[in-house]
């Protein structure tokens, strides 16, 4: 477990094991960690 709040956990582990665990807890939602970019409207080459 990497981090936690009152209602959320950030966990690191095999995806299949975690999906199996959450399948036994129907009130929980699981989502892979991913990132959002800071928007940048500047015009650049290749973008």
């Amino acid at each position: 477990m990497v981090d936690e709040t009152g209602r959320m956990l950030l966990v690191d582990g095999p995806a299949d094991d975690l999906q199996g665990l959450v399948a036994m807890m129907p009130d929980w939602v699981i989502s892979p960690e991913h990132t959002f970019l800071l928007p940048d409207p500047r015009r650049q080459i290749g973008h």
Partner: protein
Amino acid sequence: MPKQPATQQFILLPSRGLRASHDREFNAESGSFLVDLAHASESASSTGVLSSLPGLPDVKARVIDSIHEDGAKLVEMSPSAALALRARHPGLRLLPIVWYELAIAPRASTLVAPPVPAARGAAMITVTVTAADHHPVVGAMVVAFTDFAARRGAQGKTNARGQVRLTLGGASRRIDRLYVYPPENGLWGFLRRNFLLRDGFQVSLQGLDLAFTDCLRFFYGNSPDGAGQGVTIGVIDCGIDTNHPDLHVEGGANTVPGENPSDFGPNGSPHGTHVAGIIAASGRPPAGLRGLAPAVRLRSYRVFGQGQREASNYAIIKAIDAAVTDQCDLINMSLGGGAPDAATIAAIADARAQGSLCIIAAGNDDRRAVSFPASDPLALAVSALGRIGTFPATSVEAGDVEPPFGTDRKNFIAAFSNVGPALDLVGPGVGVMSTIPGGYAPMSGTSMACPAVTGAAAKLLAIRPDLLSMARNQVRSNAIAGALFASAKTLGFQPEFEGHGLLS
């Protein structure tokens, strides 16, 4: 005779789950509406003829299908009718239908020819950038497009002498567009189009005048001291400068795992401080700048790690959760662009269920569809608007002017702004002057339009104690959303560009 707008298909859903009866806090009127629609679907014409929806004589639609009597409906209507339906039933979700394609790998093809590598000793063009006082501008990004549409050309940053050398295949070259973006230090950028760029070209950047009427001040003026009083706003961003003389940050949190939870100051980027200033700066021009709601309680939730340009969905949902716990009425999120994920969707729904509204930038992908999480139906998605004459004619903002234009032909939807039926509101976002760590700068983006909407919404909420005093639940957030939609005025764009319009 005006052209009839094209219809499209939407999925109409309760605010949570697929059936109204599964949501204990769901508005009974909206639940009855779904049941009435189910009956309408049974008698619907198969010929595609639109008819008035129950209780909404002006909203023409066709109910194509229904999942359960009080559950999801597949409806067909125009984007304008969709807006009217959302205004009347803000607790319902209206999602544009999405079609998926088989994931067949595309065949390789060359869209843009690869750049020709610079030969040893190839001629280069030197561009010198100075401020109006002739001092060199260090670290300015100079971008010379030989073909703007293909994003082809050369770019580089100015050195200590304010100079950059560009390899463009000769000592002079016809340039489609030359952009100069200064570092964030109180200068406007520069744009020149369709000219012959010669070696030794000099650019002089115009300094910022804090008394200038930019597009934010054109549409909203300078707010009185008490604007926004009693409203709490959370800014989920790169952190806010707590030492800026124009800003008062009441508190916040850093939700990046592994960083100090109490460090909600800037992560090295000026973005969050700029966003915060648009909402809540309390300075007085020309010595300082003023946001739309200087009396709000401002809270900073930093989700971008130190020096990072990416934020994880985990840090974001943790920040939303913290902002809701801290009783933020409005949550500003000038970020986006990732794939929709269940956790962020759940966090936005959870905020809504506890009386808070997430107001989110639509994204800057040059008129592509509204990005996630702004596209979430329970978020308020904001596009960016500009106005000719509210930025210097030679500034980079001149490149953001593109049709469509509003009823007032000086108003335009920014070329960079994302658009589409998921939009809720539009805000001024081209050449907005605001606070940055240690000073002031102009910036453009839906990132700026979003806090303009948040600030205007705070002003509105401050004079609606009936809404602020409601129990913090879905009924409250629906009522706030409904009040904002009712306050918005169209500027004459289609709903796909401005949603309900500009908050008045």
